[in-house]
């Protein structure tokens, strides 16, 4: 009897401690350790402070140009995206129209698409072998593709707009929908024209949301990798691409490390500002329920606004994805399944050649492992952070209690969100290739990197659900006669289970699409789907391009399905970023 009591008391001490320490240990080993290694490599390669790498960087015009390009392309992309998405946000926030929920779901898909898929989609639409060029050649009888957008700034900006339009649309329209339309009407009644009411009332009130959305867009464009690498070609390089090139092509690790530091400092500053802004968007004004703020368009002006924006959304978001799928089924001879069929066989019988089918299987394996690991660690972290987990042990132990209470695990868990994937990959190469932790040859390396990227998403999906269960719900269930077990089964489980599933699907799709880190750390004989697509793109010939298209289409379908599952499972607005 006494022993059992002791045992259970021991368990109640160890379990929360372990669930707190394991995720922390994971972060220390696979996030902070690699980052520190980068730092050391950059500033003290031989153990003493050495700023020559930094000096070299600042004095070389080429890197300054890279930094400059990274900044201004991000700025232009952000301005374009916000400019295009604001009217769309207004339409979603203020109007009700047939098919709205479908359009809303469609416009959110880019959010979860891997960069490689987006890059391929734009290549399939606007590239030299893309749908537009093929159609123009056929229609006008030309002998060369008339539209030359490959390796231009235009196609990069287009892809960035495609990617982030959704982000701005979602953040701003959610906020806008809750804004009282009577504020604008009040301004109108006080003599403000339509434009003046927007400028003086709506816009200032939207600033936190627009600012947060713009900043997030800027961060994403600033660290853009896949899009620039594939669509920009050799002419364009962001910091991220330069880090990759220095690592892979020049094998100049110290320089890559210094560039990484630059990027980390920059994104961390931006992320901090973003978190501040986001906190402001979450405590706004007198918000109104959406139902009272939305109505059908009433006159031609409103109908034009709605249809023009829905048209833009469909053109911008659906055409590239549609042409990706369409191109993957068309060869010069017409409709074909060849590209899909050839995914699973090795034409050259070469030992170094990895058939794409294997890449698909690799990706699935990595994704499953990542999902298990990320969800396990995520659940541990979340339960350590949950308010009701204050056990007797924690109550007695002041330090640990404060640790749990101040929730400093939460911001730490979010850190990987602000770190670029290529930097992470570089960190793994630098840090985990020598004893005591030599994982260079282990497939585990990819899983660890993916888990790190996915972990914040899992935590963000599950934590709000757990917090949302008010202790009163449990008390109410208890008073209605439910045993503690029934309470857990009927209250906690149904609410949290869906959230855990959302986190799992997030982890899965993120792992399937991860490109930046994987491209650096995956073994040549064990490529993932995105890495294989990139390799195929590097090879000449229609067949290789076709196979890349087919793989990208597969990846797109997997991610889109994953996304639809997430959308279907979400409990209310829980898990929004």
């Amino acid at each position, binding site marked *: 009897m006494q022993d059992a009591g002791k045992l259970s008391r021991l368990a109640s001490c160890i379990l929360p401690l372990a669930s707190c320490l394991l995720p922390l240990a994971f972060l220390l080993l696979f996030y902070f350790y690699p980052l520190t290694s980068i730092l050391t490599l950059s500033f003290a390669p031989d153990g003493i402070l050495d700023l020559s790498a930094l000096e070299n960087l600042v004095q070389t015009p080429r890197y300054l140009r890279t930094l400059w390009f990274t900044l201004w392309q991000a700025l232009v992309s952000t301005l374009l995206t916000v400019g295009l998405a604001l009217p769309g946000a207004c339409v979603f926030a203020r109007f009700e129209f047939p098919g709205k929920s479908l359009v809303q779901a469609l416009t959110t898909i880019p959010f979860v698409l891997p960069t490689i898929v987006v890059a391929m989609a734009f290549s399939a639409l606007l590239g030299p072998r893309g749908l537009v060029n093929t159609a123009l050649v056929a229609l006008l009888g030309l002998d060369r593709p008339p539209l030359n957008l490959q390796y231009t700034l235009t196609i990069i900006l287009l892809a960035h707009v495609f990617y982030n339009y959704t982000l701005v649309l979602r953040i701003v329209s959610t906020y806008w929908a809750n804004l009282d339309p*009577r*504020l604008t*009407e009040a301004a*109108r009644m*006080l003599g*403000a024209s339509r434009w003046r009411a927007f400028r*003086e009332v709506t816009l*200032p009130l939207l600033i936190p949301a627009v600012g947060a959305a713009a900043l997030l867009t800027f961060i994403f464009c600033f660290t853009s990798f896949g899009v620039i690498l594939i669509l920009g070609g050799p002419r364009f390089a962001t910091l991220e691409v330069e880090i990759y090139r220095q690592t892979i092509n020049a094998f100049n690790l110290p320089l890559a490390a210094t560039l990484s530091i630059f990027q980390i400092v920059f994104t961390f500053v931006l992320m901090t500002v973003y978190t501040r802004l986001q906190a402001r968007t979450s405590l706004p004004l007198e918000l109104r329920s959406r139902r009272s703020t939305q109505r059908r368009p009433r006159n031609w002006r409103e109908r034009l606004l709605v249809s023009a924006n829905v048209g833009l959304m469909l053109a911008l978001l659906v055409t590239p994805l549609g042409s990706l799928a369409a191109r993957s089924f068309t060869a010069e001879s017409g409709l074909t399944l060849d590209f899909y069929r050839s995914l699973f066989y090795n034409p050259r019988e070469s030992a170094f050649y990895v058939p794409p089918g294997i890449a698909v299987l690799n990706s699935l394996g990595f994704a499953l492992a990542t999902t298990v690991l990320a969800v396990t660690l995520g659940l541990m972290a979340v339960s350590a952070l949950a308010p009701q987990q204050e056990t007797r042990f924690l109550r007695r132990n002041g330090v640990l209690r404060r640790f749990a209470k101040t929730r400093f695990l939460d911001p730490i868990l979010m850190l990987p969100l602000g770190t670029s994937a290529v930097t992470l990959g570089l960190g793994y190469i630098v840090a985990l290739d020598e004893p005591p932790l030599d994982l260079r040859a282990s497939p585990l390396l990819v899983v660890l990197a993916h888990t790190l990227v996915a972990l914040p998403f899992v935590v963000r999906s599950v934590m709000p659900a757990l917090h949302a269960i008010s202790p009163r719900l449990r008390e109410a269930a208890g008073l209605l006669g439910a045993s503690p077990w029934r309470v857990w089964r009927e209250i906690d489980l149904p609410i949290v289970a869906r959230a855990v599933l959302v986190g799992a699907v997030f982890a899965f799709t993120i792992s399937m699409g991860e490109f930046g880190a994987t491209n650096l750390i995956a073994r040549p004989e064990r490529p993932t789907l995105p890495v294989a697509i990139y390799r195929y793109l590097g090879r000449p010939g229609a067949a290789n391009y076709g196979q890349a298209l087919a793989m990208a289409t597969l990846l797109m379908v997997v991610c889109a399905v994953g996304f639809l599952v997430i959308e279907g499972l979400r409990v209310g607005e829980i898990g929004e970023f």
Partner: protein
Amino acid sequence: MSLLELRHIHKSYPDGWTLADVELTIERGEIVCLLGPSGCGKTTLLRVIAGLEAPDGGQLLVDGEDVTHTPPHLRGFGLMFQEYALFPHKDVFGNVAFGLRMLPRTGSRSLDRNAIAERVAEALTLVGLGGFERRDVSQLSGGEQQRVALARSLAPRPRLLMLDEPLGALDRNLRERLLDELPQILHQAGATAITVTHDQEEAFAIADRVVLMHGGRVVQIGTPREVYRRPASVWVAQFLGLTNLLNAEIVDDAIETEIGRLVVPGLKSQISNRKLLIRPEAAQLGDAGPNVVHGVVTERSFRGERYRLGVRYESGIELAFNTPANVDLPDCGEPITLSLDPQALTLLPAEKTYRT
């Protein structure tokens, strides 16, 4: 010429709901109240007048000029919203000054900085909030917010001020006080005003004229006294809380009802009427006068300044009366003889009874 004239205003919604053939004129300096249950169309009518909604048909004249298609910011009207819609990103000064900054709208001159500050101070003093300029609107109490909203809509001196449920969001004590102050402030500012409410007490206290609306139609227009004393229909009577309604049949020069034969003045001109309204203050204890009725007390509840008296008659019908608290009444179950004042009896046109 009337300040505002509505001609055959019509508006219909896809869900079948309509604003039907509304006619209304409003004179300068007058306070008119649109009164009706929620969903009667009063707020929609207000928004049509404001220009926030376009009518499907009809005309809106201001000083004889057609403004049906003038956008709201060029009409020179003011509107105080339900729950106020104060700009949360501006302080009290910024809110009240907003309309003044927009001023060069209908031919009036634009104001310089000092003039704006002066007019803001003036408006705030008028509503009793002098010196509140730099307060944050989110820190104000409900009553203070209401006053800022009023000052904001009064400051540009609109030709016509509209107030949507102006006292709806306030607690009872504050409401009572503002019920007295609001008409004073409006008259002091020389404003022509339309208010909207579902509360008859509020309408009667504030308005010079009451416009009763029901199902998107205007059902009666009159002074509060007229409306209360002579409801135009059974529905109006019921909406005003007048529930003593009897079936009436005209026999010779009197009418036959479920409680007996009653004399009503001015009977000849109302041959086709069939419902009789007995206002609750009609009853006096005793058998003086022409209309004496006998019944049994079913309810006797003390309400401070009066008694609420329930009486059942032989036909089974029950009526409710208010009697002065200083008169002793028989106990429940005891017989009671009451005399009904002919002036408190009104014949109404028979129509199907609306539910409010």
